[in-house]
């Protein structure tokens, strides 16, 4: 019996190399746990039928002394990342039956290490949402309280790790989709620098915002998984060579900026705010210098995000036409095919965002909405540049409160407002990490986790790892 609860990528690797258990035994243990818990939690949409065969390949590699850190490590992959020959649906009906023709770059990197892909994880349809309630295949429940959401859009990836149904997972983050569910389920979630991880083989949602990121139990594990997937890729022109951003030294005494002003806004749960203040005190006691910083335009972030993102969504979703792949619903002519396929294949939230995006890109509204958003995006980026001249990292809460009850946020705007702290890192393109920072009591008396978010300058994930490891004493 392997104690999955305590297992990390690092410790599992040591056990595998020492021969305490095999990759096959480890995979079997996870499959057993998934069979027991997934019917309730719905973290996985599919468990692959070749898991043990993959594990056997990993065992061969271990036996030959060629094992690397991720060899034999069982993981979950978000349903919008392609694995050749396997289904990928972005949790949408419109991709019914779609089989990936090639491997995403992140997948081929993990395959080279013989990591073990357990299955594809549930998500909000096309990554649009923060609760996995927008999946066409049912909500993912929070393993810590199944009456609550796991968060989203990478809710399945995160719940898989939180229920010990995977040792780690990959998600994607467009406005907080790795960090927010991580905060809700008590895992570590990293949104890398924009362009830091190749998106070749990731279904596009907001192309100026999307990035693939790891979900793990420790900061050390997040670093291991990030190192495995990051780097320049000729298949994705937004990836960059290492020398494009100045290196940051993580070994000096680090300064952490806190934009105290933005914590004064309404809508932040008092217990979550208190937890954040306690985390800052803890960072201070660990030897970090805490500085009050100003980010004058950050109040516009959420509005900017909910203009740019739907604009990009409306463009990216144009490819789903019932001709090239997935669902086809017959109409009276070709136009009718489009109307019916897209009208029935897309869920309500996807259609809502396509409509908003189409509106803000229309003649007459383009300048008022889209152009103004681009100007503000630049101003917010300037604010961050100024702040990072003074501090090495910026701390905020991850979300305004703990995981909400399933069905509680039925009004879309109220759900959008929960993203207020996470969207900025995507707008600016900087890396950000969600660290579990303890629990808060909810109205029904449960203790639910909340997270501390740290942001760093472009390509300075090393700063986030250094602070995170110290925060947890890793």
């Amino acid at each position, binding site marked *: 019996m392997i104690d999955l609860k305590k297992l990390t990528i690092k410790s599992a690797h040591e056990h595998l190399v020492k021969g305490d258990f095999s990759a096959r035994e480890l995979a079997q243990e996870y499959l057993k746990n998934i069979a027991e818990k997934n019917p309730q939690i719905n973290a996985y949409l599919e468990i692959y039928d070749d898991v043990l065969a993959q594990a056997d390949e990993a065992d061969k590699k271990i036996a030959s002394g060629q094992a690397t850190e991720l060899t034999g490590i069982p993981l979950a992959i978000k349903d919008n990342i392609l694995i050749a020959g396997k289904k990928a649906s972005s949790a949408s009906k419109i991709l019914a039956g779609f089989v990936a023709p090639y491997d995403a770059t992140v997948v081929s990197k993990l395959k080279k290490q013989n990591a073990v892909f357990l299955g594809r994880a549930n998500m909000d349809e096309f990554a649009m949402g923060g609760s996995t309630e927008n999946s066409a295949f049912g909500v993912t429940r929070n393993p810590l309280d199944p009456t609550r959401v796991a968060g989203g859009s990478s809710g399945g990836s995160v719940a898989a790790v939180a229920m010990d149904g995977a040792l780690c997972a990959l998600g994607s983050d467009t406005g907080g989709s790795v960090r927010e569910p991580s905060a809700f389920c008590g895992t570590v979630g990293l949104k890398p620098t924009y362009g830091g991880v190749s998106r070749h083989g990731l279904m596009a949602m907001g192309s100026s915002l999307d990035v693939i990121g790891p979900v793990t139990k420790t900061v050390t594990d997040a670093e291991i998984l990030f190192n495995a997937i990051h780097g320049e890729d000729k298949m994705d022109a937004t990836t960059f060579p290492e020398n494009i951003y100045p290196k940051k030294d993580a070994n000096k005494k680090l300064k952490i900026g806190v934009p105290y002003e933005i914590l004064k806004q309404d809508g932040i749960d008092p217990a979550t705010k208190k937890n954040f203040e306690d985390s800052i005190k803890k960072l201070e006691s660990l030897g970090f210098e805490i500085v009050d910083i100003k980010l004058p335009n950050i109040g516009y972030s959420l509005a900017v995000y909910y203009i740019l993102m739907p604009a990009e969504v409306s463009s990216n979703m144009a490819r789903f036409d019932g001709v090239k792949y997935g669902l086809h619903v017959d109409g009276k002519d070709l136009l009718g095919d489009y109307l019916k396929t*897209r009208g029935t294949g897309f869920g309500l939230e996807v259609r809502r965002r396509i409509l908003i995006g189409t509106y803000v890109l229309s003649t007459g509204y383009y300048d008022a909405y889209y152009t103004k958003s681009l100007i503000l995006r630049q101003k917010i980026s300037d604010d961050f540049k100024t702040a990072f001249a003074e501090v090495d990292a910026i701390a905020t809460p991850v979300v305004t409160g703990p995981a909400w009850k399933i069905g509680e946020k039925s009004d879309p705007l109220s759900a959008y407002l929960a993203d207020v702290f996470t969207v900025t890192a995507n707008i600016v393109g900087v890396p950000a990490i969600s660290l579990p920072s303890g629990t808060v009591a909810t109205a029904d008396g449960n203790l639910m986790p909340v997270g501390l978010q740290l942001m760093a300058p472009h390509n300075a994930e090393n700063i986030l790892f250094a602070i995170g490891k110290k925060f947890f004493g890793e």
Partner: protein
Amino acid sequence: MITTEDIKHLAELSRMEISDAEVQKLTGEIDSILGYVGQIMNTTGDMSREVPVLHNVMREDEPTNTTGEFTEAILANAPSREKNYLKVKKILGGNSDDII
């Protein structure tokens, strides 16, 4: 203030059939979302400043795969095909039931 007619027009532009009941629901929701994001409309600034920050990364237009490497895997996903072609309804005029 966005109207039900606006929503119907946007649905047409984006090629989605939406029921009348949903048009009603979406009109209210989208109106409140646009009300919220509209706070940015009074921003002033210069768009040209964006140019030095973002730039295009170009590469030679060379094939990254061998001919036919992915053809079958890609076409196998098509709802309707004939040999190596995607099959769609007639695009221009005439009897719309004709398949070409």
